């Protein structure tokens, strides 16, 4: 602390004041006294601001801490789903039963052929010591129930049937998958495990022979839902979400922009307009499940639209996003300086021309940002979509807006509910996919805003 | 004039108009004076009458300059040299108008002398004095037109000649009046006429001071050399 001589120039002025109006205290004290008092109080003030900083830092650390815990949990649960266990089986495909006269694969024959049986039989050959139906069934459970279908797809994709025995890699069952990834506890009591002791023995044998491997789980990204976790993927859910969001944007954006323009420029001031404005703002806070109920009652019940369709899902989400976009649009329109509007009107442009030629183009970045944020919100909504039925078990990737579909967050919900451990890790991976989409959309919104921000 | 032009062309035009009006007044005043000095010798009555009646024109022109100067100040808010230009124009106009008045006075008195039939007093230098005063006016108005402070200062110093001539003339006339009492009336008028011419010389220096003020922003510092000793003449 250093002492500064502030001088006493103000003293005379203050002394005259104090003598004429009788004001006592520090105000009329000489400068040195006042400055000493202020300096003394400075210590307390600095301590208070340090404390405040500390609280702020603690709050941020706590928030980031929770975020880290969340992300760590999800990632640690989900990253293993990126891999899928496959088992090597030597199979000889009987060409005669698959091919037609020309030597090409006959689709009919292929469809009717018992691929699953072929796989199982071939697999059993590796374990000649396994006899007895029960045991053999137990052995077969080590492979995926859809292994036969997988093999058929491999053969059909290749287009030829090789002669003689060939080693094929087929998917293991989800229990083996979990075992391989170390997610199954081998030490607990057999009755509490899904893998029985004999299966463990066989598993170890396969591992010892190196007939088992982990490959990238492309099924997750290319297939729709399935009963078997190893055959389940999010493609159906992603497409369903995408279709629903397209409907949302196509419906919500024009309606919201037009509503905002009307409210800003054309609505006559009065009770009715105030009423509308208040309600638009309130709608933004309504719980999303209420919109689901609305969709259920009106779209499905009254209009009889197809259940589980992305069309209906999109409409419900559009209603939900409408207030967000209206509010963002109004804020952007208001940010356009009124001088532009005056200039356009002064030249003889009609209010509509002014809005279309000048105001909206300048408000566009803000509108876009608001829309992206609204879409990002809608992407993560589960409750309203459940209400209108996009929660069914759908095995096909939806091809149109009226096909039954499901959405990504709903898929996550369905999977997280199931008993299989493998679905748990897959739902964590799906959450990571969803988070990735959300983060990239928000990033896009930030970048767009930065790029188009104009300084007036 | 070598100065830059104003962005407002109307402003330039106003100042130019003002300047031209003052020049016109100057020409008129000088012409009046010239004619009056000549008429002293010729004693031509018609000319004298014309001088007297022309004086109204000078009054009108001075009023117009006044009006214009007020207008320029009110509407253009001139500053610095522009402001000095307007103020100087006003001042010079007043001086020129009074010069014209003196010319008229000279004409009036000449008329009286002529009508009384008195002869001119011999050995009179008054024409010469009038000449010098006339030249001073010419030169100082030229200095004003060109914003030439050097020329103005030179005219300013020249007034001493007029003063000398006036003092000499004064003594001469007194001597003549003492010698011949019949010449007293004429002599008295002549004394006044000479005084008027001397005053006109002073006016020319006044204009010179204004030109100096216009160019440099201040009147000349040194005091002007004066040599009018007529107030000290006691006896013949």
């Amino acid at each position, binding site marked *: 602390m250093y002492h500064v001589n502030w001088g006493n120039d103000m003293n005379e002025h203050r002394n005259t004041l104090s003598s004429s109006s009788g004001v006592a205290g520090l105000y009329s004290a000489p400068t040195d006294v006042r400055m000493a008092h202020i300096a003394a109080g400075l210590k307390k003030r600095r301590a208070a601001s340090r404390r405040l900083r500390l609280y702020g830092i603690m709050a941020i650390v706590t928030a980031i801490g929770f975020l880290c815990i969340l992300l760590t949990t999800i990632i640690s649960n989900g990253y293993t789903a990126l891999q899928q266990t496959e088992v090597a089986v030597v199979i000889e495909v009987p060409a005669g039963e698959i091919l037609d006269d020309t030597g090409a694969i006959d689709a009919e024959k292929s469809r009717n052929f018992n691929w699953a049986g072929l796989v199982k039989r071939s697999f059993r050959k590796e374990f000649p010591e396994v006899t007895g139906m029960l045991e053999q069934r137990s052995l077969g459970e080590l492979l995926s129930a859809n292994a036969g279908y997988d093999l058929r797809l491999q053969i059909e994709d290749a287009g030829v049937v090789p002669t003689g025995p060939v080693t094929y890699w087929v998917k293991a069952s989800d229990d083996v998958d979990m075992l391989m990834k170390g997610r199954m506890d081998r030490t607990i009591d057999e009755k509490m495990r899904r893998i029985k002791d004999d299966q463990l023995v066989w598993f170890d044998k396969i591992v010892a022979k190196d007939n088992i491997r982990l490959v990238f789980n492309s099924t997750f990204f290319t297939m729709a839902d399935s009963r078997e976790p190893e055959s389940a993927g999010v493609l159906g859910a992603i497409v369903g979400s995408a279709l629903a969001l397209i409907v949302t944007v196509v419906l919500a954006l024009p309606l919201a922009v037009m509503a905002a323009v009307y409210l800003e420029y054309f609505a006559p001031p009065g009770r009715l307009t105030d009423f509308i404005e208040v309600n638009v703002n309130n709608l933004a806070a309504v719980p999303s499940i209420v919109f689901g109920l609305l969709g259920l009652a009106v779209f499905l019940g009254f209009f009889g639209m197809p259940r589980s369709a992305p069309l209906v899902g999109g409409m419900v989400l559009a209603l939900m996003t409408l207030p967000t976009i209206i509010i963002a649009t109004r804020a952007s329109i208001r940010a356009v300086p009124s*001088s532009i509007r005056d*200039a356009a009107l*002064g030249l003889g442009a009609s209010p509509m021309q002014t809005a279309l030629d000048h105001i909206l183009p300048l408000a566009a970045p803000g509108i876009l940002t608001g829309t992206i944020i609204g879409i990002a919100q809608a992407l993560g909504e589960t409750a309203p979509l459940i209400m209108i039925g996009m929660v069914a078990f759908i095995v096909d990737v939806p091809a149109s807006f009226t096909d039954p579909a499901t959405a990504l967050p709903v898929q996550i919900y369905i999977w997280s509910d199931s008993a299989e451990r493998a679905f748990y890790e897959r739902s964590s991976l799906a959450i990571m996919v969803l988070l990735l989409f959300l983060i990239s959309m928000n990033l896009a919104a930030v970048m767009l805003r930065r790029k188009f921000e*104009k300084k007036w | 004039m070598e100065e830059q032009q104003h962005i407002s062309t*109307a402003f330039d035009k106003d100042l130019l108009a003002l300047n031209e009006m003052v020049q016109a007044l100057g020409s008129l005043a000088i012409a009046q004076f010239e004619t009056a000095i000549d008429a002293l010798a010729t004693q031509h009555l018609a000319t004298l009458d014309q001088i007297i009646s022309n004086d109204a024109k000078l009054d009108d022109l001075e009023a117009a300059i006044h009006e214009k100067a007020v207008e320029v100040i009110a509407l*253009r808010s001139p500053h610095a040299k522009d402001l000095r230009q307007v103020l100087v124009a006003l001042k010079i106009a007043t001086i020129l108008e009074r010069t014209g008045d003196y010319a008229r006075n000279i004409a009036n008195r000449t008329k009286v002398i002529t009508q009384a039939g008195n002869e001119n007093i011999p050995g009179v230098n008054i024409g010469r004095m009038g000449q010098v005063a006339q030249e001073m006016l010419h030169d100082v108005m030229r200095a004003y037109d060109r914003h030439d402070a050097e020329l103005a200062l030179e005219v300013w110093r020249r007034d001493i000649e007029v003063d000398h001539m006036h003092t000499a003339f004064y003594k001469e006339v007194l001597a003549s009046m003492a010698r011949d009492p019949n010449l007293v009336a004429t002599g008295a008028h002549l004394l006044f006429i000479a005084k008027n011419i001397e005053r006109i010389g002073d006016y020319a220096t006044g204009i010179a001071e204004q030109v100096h003020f216009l160019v440099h922003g201040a009147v000349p510092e040194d005091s002007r050399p004066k040599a009018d000793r007529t107030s000290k003449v006691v006896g013949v």
Partner: protein
Amino acid sequence: MDSTTKPTDASKLKPVDVSVFYGEKQALYDVSLDIDAKSVTSFIGPSGCGKSTFLRCFNRMNDVIPSCRVEGQIIMDDVDLNSPKIDPVLLRARVGMVFQKPNPFPKTIYENVAYGPRIHGLAANRQEMDFIVEDSLKKAGLWKEVSDRLNDQATGLSGGQQQRLCIARAIAVGPDVLLMDEPCSALDPIATSIIEELISDLQNRFTIMIVTHSMQQAARVSQKTAYFHLGKLIEYGDTKEIFTRPQNEQTEAYISGKIG
């Protein structure tokens, strides 16, 4: 052009008993004037005296403010501009406006000037539009400075240039009357002088009404001046008379800087 000895033409605009209300509050009280054609008339007065409000009556910009109500008549060419039958959009093609803060559109210089003629359909093809743009920029004294960069953004110009661009934009529509609401208050003295000189040129073609809070500007630029105070017209007359011998005490007090 000498700003003082202009012969007064026939009156172009005749406001008659114009009053303006914002809700219940009255901002202008029964103003009547005769505005001369092809000359500059200035409105002066302290802040809040109603001069800008009055100016905006001439192109019905007050319509944009919801609570604003204009009573009285404004006669131009035997038509009352204030009548509800008049379409403001049409009116604004005849009465142009330049605002206090230069407000070019965030588009190119060419597009700024072309916008007005475009929406009114004044150019049949590209050549005609090019001509309109060039002519307007020339009349606004800006052509030499921007002729080689018509496709640059208008916001890259200096303040004074932007305001001249706004003037060019207004006159591109070919109005009879130009309204200027404190056009120089956001500009430095040199830019102001340039625009005042421009106004002197423009008055040969347009009837100009200018609101200004600078009395010196009104003195320099206008032939007639109207002094407003608290919504009333106090005095209206030749600029020269107002600034040398005003007839009203209040006018005298304002001009000499004795009141707000």
